[in-house]
């Protein structure tokens, strides 16, 4: 009997101690941080949610007074309009063409430039490197008038070439490649030189394949940047057939006033491919952002 009592007492004491430990380890700062993060996430996501919901509403519901968190009807009119009554297909193709071209050329050019500055000895190498670093500090907006005049003089305005051209200035990717190539032990280069490799073989068969991660990350971030670019394509192209998706959506207007659902539906369709690319290559995109953040820091 006494043995049973003693066991019960022990159990009670153990449970009390455990409760005490739980109270002690209760992280008040952590709780506040979690609540603050959740609030920040809601504030960040709400406009996205509101955009999607609005695009699904009939126009009459959009302009009705009051907050309506979910549509009463789901007519999807704005999406059918954006897909079948605009030139969104052409704009998609234009965006895809210019973004892929920009990505391909930027990656090849930057890898080549980064390799040359990192590995080759030629007169003016240091000056070239400083110029690339300096160009990194000039915002693209400061050059946009010059670009326009230049492309205009070459009669390239309203062409896809004009859209791609100025986007090829990508000093960050050159800097990232240069830093990576600098970090490759010189034995690899020398072993390949002894084996008879020339510079192109060194770049494309040794240096680049050694870390495809960097190239993939830079390609994805360049692609997303080119797809989302608005200002320059907006200035360089005025013909609807040559427009990118970001510029094209500005054409979805109506003579009888603003159609919010329609505009938002087109905007969502415009951003969808990039969102998908981001979701698929999330890790690589983060890696690229960290690489470029390292450069900026």
């Amino acid at each position, binding site marked *: 009997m006494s043995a049973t009592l003693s066991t019960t007492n022990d159990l009670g004491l153990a449970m009390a101690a455990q409760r005490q430990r739980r109270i002690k380890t209760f992280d008040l700062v952590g709780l506040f941080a979690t609540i603050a993060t959740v609030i920040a996430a809601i504030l960040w996501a709400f406009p996205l949610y509101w955009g999607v919901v609005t695009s699904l509403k009939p126009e009459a519901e959009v302009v009705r007074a009051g907050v309506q968190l979910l549509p009463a009807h789901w007519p999807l009119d704005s999406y059918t309009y954006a897909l079948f009554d605009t030139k969104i297909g052409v704009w998609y193709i234009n965006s895809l063409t210019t973004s892929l071209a920009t990505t391909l050329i930027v990656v090849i050019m930057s890898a080549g430039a980064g390799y040359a500055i990192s590995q080759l000895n030629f007169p003016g190498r240091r000056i070239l490197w400083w110029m690339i670093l300096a160009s990194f500090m000039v915002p693209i907006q400061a050059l946009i008038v010059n670009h326009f005049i230049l492309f205009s003089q070459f009669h390239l305005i309203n062409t896809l070439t004009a859209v791609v051209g100025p986007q090829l200035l990508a000093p960050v990717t050159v800097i990232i490649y240069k830093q990576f190539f600098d970090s490759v032990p010189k034995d690899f280069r*020398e072993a390949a030189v002894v084996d008879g*490799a020339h510079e192109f073989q060194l770049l494309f068969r040794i240096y680049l394949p050694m870390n495809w991660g960097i190239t993939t990350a830079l390609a994805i971030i360049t692609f997303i940047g080119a797809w989302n670019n608005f200002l320059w394509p907006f200035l360089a192209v005025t013909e609807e057939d040559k427009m990118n998706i970001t510029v094209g959506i500005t054409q979805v207007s109506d003579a009888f006033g603003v159609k919010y659902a329609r505009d938002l539906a087109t905007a969502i369709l415009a951003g969808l491919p990039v969102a998908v690319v981001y979701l698929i290559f999330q890790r690589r995109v983060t890696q690229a952002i960290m690489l470029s953040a390292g450069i900026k820091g």
Partner: protein
Amino acid sequence: MHHVELRDVNKRFGTFDAIKHLSLGIEKGQFCALLGPSGCGKSTLLRMIAGLEEVTSGDIFINGENVTDTPPAKRKIAMVFQSYALYPHMTVKQNIGFSLSIAHAPKEFAEKRIAEVAKMLQLEQLLDRKPAQLSGGQRQRVAIGRSLVREPEVFLFDEPLSNLDAMLRVQMRLELAKLHKDLDSTMIYVTHDQVEAMTLADKIVVLDSGEISQVGTPLELYNNPANRFVASFIGSPGMNFLPVTASSMDGLNATLGLNGGTGIIVQTKTPLGKSIPTDGLEMGLRPEHIHVTSPDDGSANLKGNVAIVEQLGNSTILYVDTDAGQFVVEEDGAIGTKSGDNVGLVLDRKNIHVFGAGGLTI
């Protein structure tokens, strides 16, 4: 005609002379080791032979052809690097066949050649693996395979075993020796490890501050060092060096006096006292040429006290303090001498080396 010849070769980095007017000939099929401490210029010299480092002045000949300005790939050489330099994104097969692939060799020929090399180095089972999946020794073999596949005139090795652990190093040393025997190719091997140089090479070139200190076979360097530097660099444990005074000079015979010791009559290579000053003389004696005896033994040249005893099994290393200085003595493994014992030391006078003030052997 030498297979590899360096004529008055000089290499300058800024104001620093890494290689100072060096001339050297290496015969066909010879295994030549470039030996020296860090910074002596041995790797620079090898890289100059490979064509990876420009020659400031002088000429390099391979098989009678002046290759001083020839690119590395056309010198008919192959090089194995200290880090192995295996391309991490390629398989063993691709690594071995890289030189053939960039030379656009026919696929069948490349496959056959890779298979031959893989068989020779027992790499057949590893051909589809990446370097990261290999052990140190396997990586080393792949690096050698990559050089073998090119069928070069000359193999260059830049401290290829320094990244391996002690046991593997011994194993790979044997494999390299076997490879040299099988191929009968000219091999130039850079190392700072005198054991590697002594065991592998037919000819050792000892370098000091960009200059050749001595060239010779391993035993020549060991038994007849040209100077104090070579004497100190070759042999483990190192040679004992002690200041001595010379008296009773008679032709090539001189009596050397040690502090607290009996006079030792030695034979020098050059008569002392005439052209060679007797100031600043040093005596050099290898640890195995000193024997421990009883302190009362009349044949003992010196008396001393044992400071430290290191038992290595097959031998025992004794550190003996004497009035002349500390002696390192290598004795039989079974010797019963203990730390703190008083002992007598008998110096083997036939193996005493005498060095002048400038460090040259007299």
